[in-house]
């Protein structure tokens, strides 16, 4: 019974919706709403990566590159091409998908470490282009992102973006859960366990891996667009290497292959640095230590480990 509830799709969505609904009630100021909105946005990017890493078993060290493409799409589109910000967001997502397809096609033939290094290279190239093409991107100083105006209503401030990012996360989670429950999702999981066995039972390994890479690229791109629109300003740092690592860490800390885990992992890495600022210079060291402690005591990631605990207790 409990096992069934914990693994049902509706329960996961309800849990996320409840989290999104309850934060504004508890938050003493809009600063907390902003932090929560960042959790939903990075959670969305981590969700995409969980499809790639948690299910298809492929490691990407360049996912912030897609975040950067999505972010600059909503900055450059309206400012330089005169496009509507929302259209730019969609075009950015399409662009991320196309780039992921073009990049993934040759890269995904590589396995293990080679794939990680190739994606690392991709991320670095995106950051480099955004930094050096100053005429279009504003260079290392970054550029303004025009405000979204919807039906004459200028969307600014923390509250509307909190609900937009929360909504986007729910839609993303719904799509991810449906993908994972579909035959394609099962094929991805088979691939994770053994590529040889999956190929043996007729899974088109290369095509499924590529599909997972494209999907995760689009998720990161949309997350990047939302981040840029909420902040109203973007710098090439968004596509930086450290952000790629952060995304991978979110997926692993939260729990590989868990939808809720991706969001919990994002919360871990967005909220903790805020909580640890009291430690001043020791902040980074303690953050690293906490990550180690969590990985040692909850090796499968926070969410899967806790779920196992609950099920064991109930049994």
């Amino acid at each position, binding site marked *: 019974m409990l096992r069934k509830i914990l693994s049902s799709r509706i329960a996961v969505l309800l849990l996320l919706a409840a989290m999104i609904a309850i934060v504004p009630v508890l938050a*003493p*100021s*809009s*600063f*907390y709403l*902003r*932090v929560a909105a*960042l959790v939903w946005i990075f959670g969305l990017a981590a969700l995409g990566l969980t499809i790639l890493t948690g299910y298809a078993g492929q490691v990407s060290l360049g996912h912030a590159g897609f975040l950067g493409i999505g972010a600059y799409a909503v900055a450059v589109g309206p400012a330089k091409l005169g496009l509507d910000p929302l259209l730019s967001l969609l075009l950015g997502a399409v662009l991320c998908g196309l780039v992921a397809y073009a990049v993934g096609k040759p890269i995904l033939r590589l396995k293990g470490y080679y794939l990680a290094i190739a994606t690392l290279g991709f991320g670095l190239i995106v950051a480099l282009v955004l930094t050096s093409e*100053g005429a279009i991107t504003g*260079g*290392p*100083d*970054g550029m*303004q992102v025009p405000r979204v105006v919807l039906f004459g209503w200028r969307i600014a*401030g*923390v509250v509307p973006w909190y609900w937009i990012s929360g909504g986007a996360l729910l839609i993303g989670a719904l799509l991810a859960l449906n993908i994972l429950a579909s035959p394609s999702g099962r094929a991805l999981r088979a691939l994770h366990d053994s590529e040889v066995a999956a190929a043996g039972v007729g899974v088109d390994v290369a095509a499924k891996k590529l599909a997972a890479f494209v999907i995760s690229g689009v998720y990161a791109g949309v997350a990047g667009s939302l*981040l840029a629109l909420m*902040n*109203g*300003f*973007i*710098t090439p*740092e*968004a596509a930086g290497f450290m952000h790629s690592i952060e995304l991978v860490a979110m997926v692993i800390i939260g729990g590989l292959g868990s939808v809720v885990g991706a969001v919990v992992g994002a919360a871990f890495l967005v909220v*903790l*640095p*805020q*909580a*640890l*600022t*009291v*430690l*001043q210079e020791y*902040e*980074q060291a303690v953050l690293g230590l*906490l990550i180690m*402690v*969590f990985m040692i*005591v*909850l090796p499968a990631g*926070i969410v899967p*480990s*806790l779920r*196992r*605990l609950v099920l*064991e207790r109930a049994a």
Partner: protein
Amino acid sequence: MQQTAARRALRAAAVVTSVTITSALTIGPSLAADPIKIGSVLSATGPASFLGDPEQKTLKLFVEALNKKGGILGRPVELVLYDDGGDANKARTFATRLIEDDKVVAMVGGTTTGTTMAMIPVFEDAKIPFISLAGAIEIVEPVRAFVFKTPHTDKTACQKIFEDMKARGLTKIGMISGTDGFGKSMRAQCMKVIGDYGITALVDESYGPTDADMTPQLNKIKNTADVQAVLNPGFGQGPAIVTRNYAQLGIKLPLYQSHGVASKSFIELAGPAAEGVRLPAPALLIADKLADTDPQKPVVMDYKKSYETATGQPVSTFGGYGFDGIQLLVSAIERAKSVEPQKIRDAIEGTKGHVGATGLYTMTPTDHLGLGTESFHMLEIKGGDWVPQDKK
């Protein structure tokens, strides 16, 4: 067995979580007598830490010293300091936190142009004064009601150079600029103000940041008739190569370099060719060479001494920006006799003749930087050392 291990894991996780939550709730050491809270978001770590670290040390030192003297308006000052690691997104989150959660009355910070631009809307919306420590002129042009900055801009350096040229009767010049970020930006600023001084650029050459030989460009300048002086906006090793090629070609015209190479390493790189080169530099660089009558001398020497004894590191102009930022703010709060953000803002805008480490600040409703060309000192390199050329 499995179960006890699992239970232990759960307990460990619970302990870690509760420790985190408790530390999050007790924010900072609480000072007696209702402190005045001043916020600061700096890039003390990350790629911009060479700027942010001296800024952070300076602010901490200054506030410590201020509290020993009894604070402002009889109240202690609490500096709420956050490190954005050079990340504009983090900077913006911390800016929101300073306003919403810490309820600061003003902010001194923003190490890079990127982090500053990301934070500006937060402070403008909340109507909290924000004194930025970043370089770009876009921060104060157009003027925003609550945003100020302390570092001088490339434009001021250009004006200083052109002033000096005009005084020497040099009105027709050749330009040779680096295509790096600094060189490009400074060239653009110089071209904007060059007309104000009745000076014209007869040739306008450029070189790449990694070029190892600028002889062709310099030859073109040499062969252009009527050129009376040459200006080289650039950063890094490019200007040193220009200076050496300049001497090799035997060009006798006065050569001007920018504040971008105002460091000892430039003299070392360019060698004897640097003799006679002129460049504008901030007072901190030549603290001990300033004339005793210079109003900046006591301020600069004082800051240099206290920073160097406290940290054991040589003083930098970047720390000086932080020093000026917090001083402008403290003086504004004292003049306003209030910690109301609107009144502090008005007082900062009313700053007149404030002597800082970077220069003399006089703010107006149309100028939120307030530095004139006197914030730079024209230096000439003689005998491998700087010699100030200021009129006595």
